[in-house]
């Protein structure tokens, strides 16, 4: 004990000689560690139950053996306290106190609800203890900030919604509305086709474009969702018959031109407003309605059906006669109206077939087409005896139905002077011999 006291005294003297240059450990309890002897507090053995009145009372003694001499120890008799410090009340026990400090004798550290460090900006919240400055604020939590400078009692760092420095994002156009944060130039889109109309309006919006608004202007029809852009056309089909007329312009459209407007032509509609007519055809007046017309061609605008009284053929050889319309060939004629024709070739205005007196096939062989009473050539044999069979020589006669008297179509009378004799049976025998 004596030796320790002496050492403490020497140390104190040295400390005094060295002044402020004496090394101290700011992180420890402020006591000077023993250089040559172990700290009294950690020295083996318990402190004296009864201090040595003689030695312990000296200023250089360390009565409570806490390593601090009595003259420096704010509690010489209390080994757990030896130094004086300004202590703050640390209500939230975050290591920082608040309020005015009070001087207290303490040891290694203050009590758990006390701190040697003051300036706790919120002693009721262990997570908040220091004031940090911020320059940007996101009050509505939408991730976009506005310039707003201030300070905040916080923990180690600024909480979300506060930035000390430019966040690099577009400024929040609605700082108190989490659903809107960006400013956009929009146009009223009444019909919902995503194309709006002037004038432009600046709206603070969120992730999506609000209904009734569009980012693009130029809708050529603000009340028709199917039309929003002007498209050029070069042909029109106003009546929908698919045949066009040349007409160019622009029309408010959707993705494609509306019906009736085209960029390519198809024919030339002669009746642009009449779906039943679209083509011009040369027709001919068909006065007798036999399907074949005549006269000069009449350019006529029509569709699938020809107008009544007109024909696409103009070759009617009898325009006023419904029974005749075309020239047909004939090879025989019967001008006298009897029962036979004569050969004659030509063509005659007819209907489905040639009509009398013209014929394609012969009827008999008229021997006199100028005499209706005679129509046939007949070989006749003179029949002198009147027995009905004549004899050669024969003659050819132009006759009607009747034969002249004294003539016969048979000419094998072997005796034309005797009406009782006609044929010779021997002749017939010879004939049979000839045949077989």
């Amino acid at each position, binding site marked *: 004990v004596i030796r320790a006291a002496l050492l403490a005294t020497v140390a104190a003297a040295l400390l005094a000689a060295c002044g402020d240059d004496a090394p101290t450990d700011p992180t420890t309890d402020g006591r000077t560690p023993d250089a040559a002897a172990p700290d009294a507090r950690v020295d083996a053995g318990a402190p004296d139950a009864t201090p040595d009145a003689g030695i312990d009372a000296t200023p250089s003694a360390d009565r409570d053996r806490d390593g601090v001499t009595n003259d420096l120890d704010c509690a010489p008799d209390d080994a757990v306290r030896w130094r004086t410090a300004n202590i703050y009340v640390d209500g939230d026990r975050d290591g920082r106190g608040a309020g005015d400090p009070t001087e207290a004798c303490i040891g290694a550290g203050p009590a758990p609800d006390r701190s040697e460090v003051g300036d706790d900006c919120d002693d009721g919240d262990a997570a908040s203890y220091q004031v940090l400055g911020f320059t940007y604020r996101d009050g509505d939590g939408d991730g976009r900030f506005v310039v707003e400078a201030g300070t905040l009692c916080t923990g180690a760092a600024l909480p979300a919604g506060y930035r000390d420095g430019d966040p690099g994002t577009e400024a929040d156009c609605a700082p108190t509305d989490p659903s809107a944060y960006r400013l956009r130039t929009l146009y009223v889109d009444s019909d919902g086709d995503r194309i709006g109309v002037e004038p432009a309006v600046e709206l603070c919006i969120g992730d999506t474009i609000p209904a009734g608004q569009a980012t693009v202007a130029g809708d050529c029809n603000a009340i028709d969702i199917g039309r929003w852009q002007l498209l050029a056309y070069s042909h029109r089909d106003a009546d929908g018959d698919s045949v066009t007329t040349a007409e160019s312009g622009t029309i408010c459209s959707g993705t494609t031109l509306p019906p009736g407007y085209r960029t390519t032509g198809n024919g030339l509609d002669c009746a642009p407003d009449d779906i039943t007519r679209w083509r011009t055809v040369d027709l001919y007046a068909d006065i007798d309605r036999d399907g074949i017309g005549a006269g000069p061609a009449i350019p006529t605008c029509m569709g699938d059906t020809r107008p009544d009284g007109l024909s696409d053929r103009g070759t009617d050889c009898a325009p006023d006669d419904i029974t005749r319309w075309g020239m047909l060939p004939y090879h025989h004629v019967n001008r006298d109206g009897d029962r036979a024709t004569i050969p004659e070739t030509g063509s005659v205005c007819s209907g489905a077939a040639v009509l009398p007196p013209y014929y394609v096939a012969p009827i008999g062989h008229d021997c006199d087409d100028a005499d209706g009473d005679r129509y046939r*050539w007949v*070989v006749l*044999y003179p029949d002198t005896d009147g027995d009905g069979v004549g004899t050669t020589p*024969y003659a050819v006669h132009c006759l009607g139905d009747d034969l002249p008297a004294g003539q016969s*179509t048979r000419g094998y009378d072997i005796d034309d002077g005797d009406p009782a004799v006609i044929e010779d049976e021997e002749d017939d025998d010879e*004939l049979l011999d000839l045949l077989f």
Partner: protein
Amino acid sequence: VRHLLTLLLATTALAVPATALADVLTFATVDSTRAGGVGSNAPVIRVTGRLEGQEAARTIEVRSTTGEALHEQCNRQAIIAMSKPGRWHFVVEGYSYADQPSRFYARECGLTRID
């Protein structure tokens, strides 16, 4: 037999050249008939007479298309018609060509009794 005849006529009809003019000649009179060309020459009958309904007499060269048998038959029938004027019509069925109207190719000959 009828079927055979039908077949024979059909075969004969098919044998008519495409440009030929099928026809039936009816001689109202046979004024003369001359046969020739038998043997090495093609059999021919030259019949002169008046065709039914016609005024002028014509000479038709009738040629058999089936051989000498028909040639003989046609010749005999022409003679019969000539021997009994006004009793028979000598009929020849066959064909001719437009550029040779006086030459007639007979496929069949026959006699038609007038009364």
